[in-house]
């Protein structure tokens, strides 16, 4: 029986003298696992390893029960992998159909009729069926993101690695993306790297928080939110004791940290927990409030 899981054990990776991953250990099975972390946390490095384009300096990696360091097994993983990089490269002079068709050939779909059926299927799935004859250069940013997702969905991959797929999408497009990913037919292993905690709440059965190359949390989104329980309070003015605080729309201040006695506690969200967890390492521009 095929192993539909991935296992990462004590992975380390350095780029020159800069450590990117420090002994990361995690596993994931079928379903959507969210990977949260600030910029520079090592998310993309980890995803590039899961996408078989980067080897760890030490540690072991098993993808779908196979060892990516062995050439034959790496090819087999790639047959069952869908990868959407953070900054997908597009052939701008191709039409949407031609681009996905090209990738389909690189996914070993050599039967023309079968391949074209599959290309139309994935383009329809991401809502690009009507613009399939339009040149990539004429597509909007959101459409290009969906095109990148379409190529990753070719051949119903068992392992789907998505690196910040909702970056730059407007709210409607993000909802559409969630709909597509949540309706994947055969429950592949999906690793979804994101800055958007809302996506994690909406989609993921499990969330892993990565900061400074190490795993800070591994559990369900509810468990993540629970780590900030009793550590969120609201006041009329700013409280300097808070780790982080911000002025809300109603003029009051939301604080996270160790609350003072008698503070009016507020239910914690996944955002609060995430901000507490990554603390000063977070590049707050990347964190959805």
């Amino acid at each position, binding site marked *: 029986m095929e192993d539909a899981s991935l296992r990462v054990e004590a992975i380390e990776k350095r780029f020159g003298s800069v450590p990117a991953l420090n002994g990361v250990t995690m596993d994931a099975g079928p379903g959507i696992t969210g990977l949260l972390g600030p910029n520079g946390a090592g998310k993309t490095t980890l995803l*590039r390893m899961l*996408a*078989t*384009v980067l080897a760890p300096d030490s540690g072991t990696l098993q993808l779908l029960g196979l060892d990516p360091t062995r050439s034959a097994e790496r*090819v*087999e993983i*790639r*047959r069952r*992998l869908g*990868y959407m*990089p953070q*900054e*997908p*490269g*597009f*052939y*701008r002079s191709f039409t949407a159909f*031609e681009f996905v*068709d*090209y*990738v389909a*050939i*690189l*996914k*070993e779909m*050599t039967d*023309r009729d079968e*391949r074209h059926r599959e290309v139309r299927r994935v383009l329809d799935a991401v809502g690009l069926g009507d613009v399939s004859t339009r040149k990539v250069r004429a597509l909007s940013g959101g459409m290009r993101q969906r095109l990148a997702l379409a190529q990753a969905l070719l051949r119903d991959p068992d392992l789907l690695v998505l690196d910040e797929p909702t970056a730059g999408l407007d709210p409607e497009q993000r909802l559409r993306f969630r709909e597509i990913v949540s309706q994947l037919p055969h429950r592949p292993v999906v690793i979804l790297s994101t800055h958007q905690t809302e996506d994690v709440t909406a989609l993921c059965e499990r969330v892993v928080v990565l900061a400074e190359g190490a795993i800070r949390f591994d559990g369900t989104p509810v468990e993540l939110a629970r780590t900030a329980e009793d550590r969120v309070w609201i006041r009329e003015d700013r409280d300097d004791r808070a780790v982080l605080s911000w002025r809300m729309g109603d003029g009051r201040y939301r604080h996270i940290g160790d609350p003072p006695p008698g503070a009016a506690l507020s239910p914690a969200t996944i955002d609060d927990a995430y901000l507490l967890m990554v603390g000063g390492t977070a590049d707050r521009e990347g964190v959805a409030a």
Partner: protein
Amino acid sequence: MSQAARALGGLEGRRLLRHPLFLTGTGFVLIGTAYFVRSSLVEATVAWDDDAWTIGAGFTFLGLLAMIATNLAALRDRRAGAVEQHETLPVARASRTGGLLLGVGWPVAACALLFAPIWLFAASKTELSALDLLHAVDTLALIGTLGVLGVAIARWLPNPFLAPVAAWGLILTSPAEANSRWHALSPFASAESVDLAAWHLVYLFGLAICLAGAALLRDRAPRALVAVIAGFGVAGVAAGVMLVTACPGPGRCQI
């Protein structure tokens, strides 16, 4: 060659035929042909050697532009920033290169189709010899060789400005008259006897196969494939030696 390479060959070939540079080259051929047709209608007699040089020049420009087009196609991954993305796919880079090399066959076939009516028209106006036919095939082989050269340059020197520089270099290093036996090795050299023209044709095939091998070698292609290519390459080298030895005897080879 893998099935994926063949599928890619079809896709790349069709794209090359639609490439603006290839279409521009086709325009040069049509202009050269129009000039020949005009000459044949105005003058009482026409000679292929004397009057059809404009067609040859058109095909030569087409070949040089096809070289730049194949070079750009081979650099597409890099220009789009999609190299790593495609590394995650099961089809190896060598197959992608193989697809590009097979794709070169499409412009060559298109040029053969373009050439056929020109040849038939010329045959109706003047007597054509076996040497003329060899020169025509040599021109088609030149287009294929230049196309393959474009891919090889992209694989070894991945910079989109180098193919145009190489095209200019080929033009500038091809003197108007053959004053050195080494000039017989120019892809543009034209032998003035059937035997030497045939050797030049073999030489061009060998050169194309050597260049294809060089491109595939960069991508760590299977050794067996590289060995076969090397075998054909040896034939090309032998033909080259033959040419260098025999040219430029009096009036035997021209550029």
